[in-house]
């Protein structure tokens, strides 16, 4: 109990004034004498160490959140094929990202490269899915239903 009270006293003193305050430093010195200088130093080290540990964990968390940004991890996006449309019709993605095409229509569709007419997906049946791995800017359409178009734009071409 006395030790707990000692802790509280030290913390209250340290919180009240800057460390350069002469009057309070004198109070600290006087108080420490009554409990033994060695015990005082140990406790002081504990408090300082605790504060440093708390500060570094906050800094570490901040640092970690700054490092882990969406741009640095491969992303996954979803394109819904519904009502004879690709939705969204335009995506912005990075090389290596994946785009999941989900056919929610009643009829089959495909994903065809408009520039070279390569059918990338083969037929995607109603209810089925297909994954595109992004490697370039891509203008695509459904070669079965040519009015359905979409585009993948590279974020960093």
């Amino acid at each position, binding site marked *: 109990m006395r030790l707990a009270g000692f802790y509280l006293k030290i913390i209250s003193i340290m919180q009240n004034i800057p460390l350069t305050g002469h009057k309070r430093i004198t109070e600290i010195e006087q108080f420490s004498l009554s409990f033994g200088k060695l015990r005082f130093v140990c406790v002081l080290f504990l408090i300082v160490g605790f504060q440093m540990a708390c500060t570094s964990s906050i800094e570490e968390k901040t640092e970690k959140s700054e490092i882990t940004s969406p741009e640095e991890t491969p992303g996954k996006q979803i394109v819904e094929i519904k009502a004879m449309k690709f939705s969204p019709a335009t995506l912005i993605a990075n090389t290596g990202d994946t785009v999941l095409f989900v056919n929610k229509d*009643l*009829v089959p569709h495909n994903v065809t490269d408009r520039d070279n007419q390569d059918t990338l997906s083969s037929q995607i049946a109603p209810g089925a899915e297909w994954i595109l791995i992004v490697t370039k800017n891509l203008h695509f359409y459904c070669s*079965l239903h040519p009015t*359905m178009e979409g585009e993948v734009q590279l974020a960093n071409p």
Partner: protein
Amino acid sequence: MFYKKMLTAVTAILFGSLLFAQSPKLTDADIAHIGVTANQIDINYAEVARKNSTNTEVVKFANLMSTDHKAVIDQAVALVTKLGVTPTDNEISKSLMKSADAKIKEMSKLKGDAFNKAYLENEVAYHQAVISTVKETLIPTAQNRELKDFLGALVAPLESHLEHAQMALAQIK
């Protein structure tokens, strides 16, 4: 242009009047059968085109009609099976099929460009009639929520087919 408008009007009137006369009595079982029949009719039209046409775009369109409408029928059957609804043959389905058979006989007598034009014009008129009927009669009349949603989801592919048929028709003229 006048002939095309007349064909569309006649097809729509035939489709619509048959359904209008019966709509107060249409059950989900009737609607399911009419839906399947309407899709089967377009598959039958596509078969005639695949046999009779040598035009690449017409055959491509016919193949698409066959693929898409078969997919719709498969899902319609799966849905009614899940719902425990048995599609019931009815006078409307029979009349539609009878009219379609007559149309097929008529088109089969044609060759070359005359056939291509007749087929695509019929596709335009037929899809317009079916879209109108689905929106104005079948969806409002259907009782089951999932059946309504299925019919609602059918409209977009039908409209896409209509647009495609109109584009193909414009290309062969």
